[in-house]
């Protein structure tokens, strides 16, 4: 038990539970399984995006362009669907992965080959990608009526009791878990964040690994582009505007260190769910929506403070050793 409490994931899970219990006290239907599953489903896209962002942050980088990538890829597939409704949805989904990965790879190449700091690169592509949404669409929206029923309906199909959207999140989470713990690439992501110099000495190609991290994040953002558009049934320039910071917030709450090298898949999932629960709970317990922003801001600050406290106990502790001996 004591060992368990050392993990911040446990604390985060408890915090989420606490929020759920408190909301339930005021509004009993909140904790019904069906409502909780709805919240999970609502948070699916954020979870996936945060996992992609985590891969990047682990390498001491940051991707500010994910939301713009999502908007651009979403617009591309929505326009294709509107123009050629007969194109099968799986093909469109594959396309969204490819387009997203391509945009991510563009970030990655600039970071890898030109050594431009990631925050600068993605600050640039943040505006470029979103501008391109306008350019390709001429500013016009693609609305529900123009999308094919399959395009909209796929993620809403219930499979084994859960909507397909939730399954996307679950499968992504499992894949990321395997990637992060069991593959050389995943371990390299961590290694680069913990000690970039040492990574070079162990034969890791730091630049290329960062490139792959950006590509992975891009692919996730692209897929989420399709999911987002078909979920909110509108593709416009404004889609997911400002969402890049929410994604980073989910990572931070989930215990990913902005300095790289630290972070787990379960932590990030919980971080996203925490934000999802808060967002769902506020309207339900009749807290004015105007409080929402301040509350999530405070939650982020609280999370960083707790994170820092957790990491602070790093000292060398010469004396204790002396006492124990």
């Amino acid at each position, binding site marked *: 038990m004591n060992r368990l409490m050392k993990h911040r994931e446990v604390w985060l899970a408890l915090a989420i539970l606490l929020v759920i219990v408190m909301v339930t006290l005021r509004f009993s239907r909140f904790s019904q399984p069906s409502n909780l599953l709805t919240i999970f489903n609502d948070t699916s896209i954020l979870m996936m995006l945060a996992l992609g962002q985590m891969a990047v942050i682990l390498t001491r980088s*940051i991707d*500010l362009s994910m939301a713009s990538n999502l908007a651009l890829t979403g617009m591309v597939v929505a326009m294709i669907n509107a123009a050629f409704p007969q194109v099968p949805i799986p093909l469109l989904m594959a396309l969204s992965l490819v387009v997203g990965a391509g945009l991510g790879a563009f970030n990655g190449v*600039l970071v890898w080959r*030109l*050594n*431009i*700091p990631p*925050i*600068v*690169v993605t*600050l*640039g*592509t*943040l*505006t*470029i990608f*979103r*501008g*391109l*949404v*306008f*350019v390709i669409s001429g*500013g016009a929206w693609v609305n529900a009526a123009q999308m094919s029923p399959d395009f909209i309906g796929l993620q809403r199909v219930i499979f084994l009791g859960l909507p397909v959207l939730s399954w996307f999140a679950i499968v992504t989470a499992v894949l990321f878990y395997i990637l992060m713990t069991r593959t050389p690439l995943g371990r390299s992501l961590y290694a680069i964040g913990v000690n970039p110099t040492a990574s070079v000495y162990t034969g890791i190609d730091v630049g290329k690994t960062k490139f792959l991290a950006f590509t992975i994040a891009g692919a996730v953002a692209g897929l989420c582009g399709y999911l987002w558009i078909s979920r909110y049934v509108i593709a416009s*320039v404004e889609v997911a505007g*400002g969402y890049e*910071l929410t994604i*980073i*917030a989910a990572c*931070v709450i989930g215990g990913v260190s*902005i*300095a790289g090298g630290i972070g787990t898949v379960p932590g990030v999932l919980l971080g996203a769910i925490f934000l999802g629960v808060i967002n769902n709970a506020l309207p339900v317990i009749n807290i*004015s929506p*105007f*409080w*929402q*922003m*301040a*509350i*999530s*801001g*405070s939650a*982020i*600050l609280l999370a*960083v*403070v707790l994170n*820092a406290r957790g990491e*602070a106990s790093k000292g060398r502790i010469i004396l204790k050793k002396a006492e124990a001996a």
Partner: protein
Amino acid sequence: MTDTAATGRQLPDRLDNPLKSAVLSWESLLVLVAVVIFIVNSFASPYFLNAWSLSDLTFNFTEKALIALAMALLIISGEIDLSVAAIISLASTLMGLALQYGADTPVLVLVGIGAGLACGAVNGALVTKLKLPSIVVTIGTMSLFRGISFIILGDQSFKGYPKSFAWFGQGYVGWVISFELVLFLVCAVIYWVLLHRTNFGRRVFAIGNNDVAARFSGVRVDRIKFILFCLTGLMSGVAAVLLTARLGSTRPSIAEGWELEAITMVVLGGVSILGGAGSIIGVVLAALIMGLVTFGLGLLNVPGIVMSIFIGGLLIVVIALPILFRMWRQRA
């Protein structure tokens, strides 16, 4: 050992000619870019070369550029503040609140600037006292500050600011020279002196290069970083006064997205996002370039979002060019 001086082995101050390095500097690249854009603009639109047009142009960037001045120092010291736009919102809201209690112009200005300063102090305290990374702290306070505005204002807006207050955002000092522009130029000079000609500025660079070594060299790192956050908050407060005066009203959603624009100015101005390098002249030039690009394209009725492609592209290209040039020279 004392006799080494006698051997007369004098270390020169510097080897390369300062003039030569000035010509090859980032700033001269920016001047070139600015001139080219200016010329292109004057050919592209018949309305560009007009005193009033050029004066209106400055309103597009002065407020953001005021923040960028302080942000430049902060980024040089290795920190960042993403909450500046939220500070504008909160400062403006508090000014509106003061207005409801009958405050007159001087008090309003003090409230705006004071609120900015206080928000900056909160950021500074969180970063320096609790040793937290500034990027996440300010993502948090960004929601918090704007969130407080929303709590205070809800769906309302404050309006009815006095005429004398409006002058700060709409007034002209003489002919087409606006108060905002004059204030910006004065602040630019002040920040230039502060960064490049004082002990404080020297220490800011040292901290940005290596804050551990700076601390070990007796630099009060935390105090300086705290001051820099306060300065950034203060300038956001000043920008809040100007913007509120220019709009004549306050909504919680005011100045949304400005943080990234201010940071773009700083980075385009040649300040290293990793800290330790940069200049105020570069930032002023970058602000001017962004103003020229957006206004020039605006005259052609190009939608703002397309302008942002140019800005984003400019950011990457201007930073990539010297790197590509160096790589090309090394290969040759």
